């Protein structure tokens, strides 16, 4: 008895299956993608139907995304500056006045043999004086000196790999330890301070970015929650006729992704506008400092990544809302009487 009705249900299934199973896999895949396209389009159309509300959501999202991205861009530009100076960092070693040219040459070849040294230039005291004479304008004053006051000098350019603040510091210690070296000079202090500052700033910006991303997820979540409420009847009917959870969820997830797309686009526009607005003053300021500093906008890849990230955030927000609210809508109160 218990098993009796089952073949009948299965038979009905099989009959129905036979009619539609000309090429089940390709047909199923086709209808699956057709459905996705349809849902994606419907969600977009729905958004378009309430342009003001949608635009407001996009703008909120755009501002929340543009702010951390702008700060990250600024940070990248600053780091570019410090990297530029780091690469030109040279270590200057002044020899003791007592060191002879031969001793200095021997030392130079020893230092040059070190793996961290890319290039080494020896400036002997006569050439140093000549250069000083040419560049300083103290020609007459120098004539009064009885002897050359300048020592032999070694200009050491570190290897690419040793150009970090720590690497250069290690190189300095190494050279300072050499026989006949009076003093080693490298102006790294301010570079280290700048690095420390950009590191701190980077952390702050990332913290801000995470907070704002969370805000975006919540904003989208709330918007999608309202959309779920307004489509309650549809959800009930879909569940009644056998819609799976993922079927019911799909339109809302697309809605979230579309909100993300719009928000990402607004963020890009805001970024480009502020870049354009700031570029003049920044150039002037950089010019005053004789720096090649410039604010870089988002690259094409970066813009693309921003849009994708925004869509993912929107999708995530929708998913949170759907998870919280869709399960609550269960047919049950529907069959009255």
């Amino acid at each position: 008895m218990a098993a009796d009705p089952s073949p009948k249900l299965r038979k009905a299934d099989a009959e129905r299956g036979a009619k539609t199973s000309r090429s089940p896999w390709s047909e199923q895949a086709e209808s699956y993608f057709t459905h996705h396209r349809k849902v994606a389009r419907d969600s977009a159309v729905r958004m378009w139907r309430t342009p003001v509300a949608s635009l407001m959501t996009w703008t909120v999202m755009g501002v929340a995304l543009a702010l951390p991205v702008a700060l990250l861009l600024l940070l990248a530009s600053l780091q570019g500056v410090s990297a530029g100076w780091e690469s030109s960092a040279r270590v200057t070693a002044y020899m003791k006045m007592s060191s002879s040219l031969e001793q200095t040459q021997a030392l130079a070849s020893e230092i040059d043999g070190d793996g961290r040294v890319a290039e080494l230039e020896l400036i002997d005291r006569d050439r140093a004086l000549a250069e000083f004479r040419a560049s300083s304008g103290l020609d007459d004053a120098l004539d009064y000196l009885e002897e050359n006051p300048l020592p032999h000098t070694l200009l050491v350019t570190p290897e690419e790999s040793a150009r970090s603040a720590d690497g250069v510091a290690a190189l300095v210690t190494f050279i300072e330890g050499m026989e006949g070296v009076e003093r080693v000079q490298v102006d790294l202090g301010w570079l280290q301070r700048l690095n420390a500052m950009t590191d701190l700033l980077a952390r702050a910006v990332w913290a801000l970015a995470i907070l704002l991303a969370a805000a975006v997820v919540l904003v989208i979540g709330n918007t999608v929650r309202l959309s779920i409420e307004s489509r309650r009847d549809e959800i009930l009917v879909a569940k009644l006729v056998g819609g799976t959870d993922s079927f019911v969820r799909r339109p809302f997830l697309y809605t979230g992704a579309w909100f993300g797309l719009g928000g990402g686009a607004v963020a890009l526009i805001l970024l480009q506008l502020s870049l354009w607005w700031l570029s003049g003053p920044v150039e002037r300021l950089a010019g005053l400092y004789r720096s090649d500093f410039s604010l870089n906008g988002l690259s094409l890849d970066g813009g693309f990544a921003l849009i994708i990230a925004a869509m993912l955030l929107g999708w995530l927000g929708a998913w949170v809302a759907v998870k919280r609210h869709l399960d609550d809508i269960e047919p049950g109160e529907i069959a009255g009487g």
Partner: protein
Amino acid sequence: MIEFRQVTKRYDSDHTALRQVNFHLARGELAFLTGHSGAGKSTLLKLLMVMERPSAGEVVVGGQILNSLPRRQIPYIRRHIGVVFQNHQLLFDRTVFNNVAMPLEVMGATPRDVGRRVRAALDKVGLLSKEKMNPLQLSGGEQQRVGIARAVVNKPPLLLADEPTGNLDPKLSADIMNLFAQFSQVGVTVLIASHDLALINEMNRRTLTLDHGNLVAGGNPLQGGAGGR
């Protein structure tokens, strides 16, 4: 097709909606479910739709015991059950065609298939010419027929109706009942909850009567687990 074995549904300690209900319906059988308001008709239908789970006993649909059905399996059971509601639950933001197409859409039918089957269902209920209209533009009887078309569009082996003629005049009610009779003739099991006794008597079909949660007439209690048919 449907079998209730000693089914009890208790909502809380002092409200028992169904008490040890036993019956079964064969394939192609059409039966009425009647009883006073609050007798347990809706509860019985909800158990079949897995909107509720029984407190005791077993509900079997198409050989599948519904008691222990995992939540994510529920949609697949519902695809085998067409439901017609008193307030027909149509969506007014889409056309008649798209309302009827919903059960096919959730199953992932191809657009070509959807078109063919929706038109067949609308033809069956005599509304083929109104497929592009909004359900709001239709009369009550027509709306109910759209609801029926939606319930049968994927050819479910089981059709449930909850007061399908509640708001209709006798002539329209008779039309709707004839539709149900036609479905049962092609092998669909039909269970209609109704308290329209005049209509039920006229149809002269098996009638399950509930009274305060007890099945008092029309049941076929199991006799040693092998109830006759």
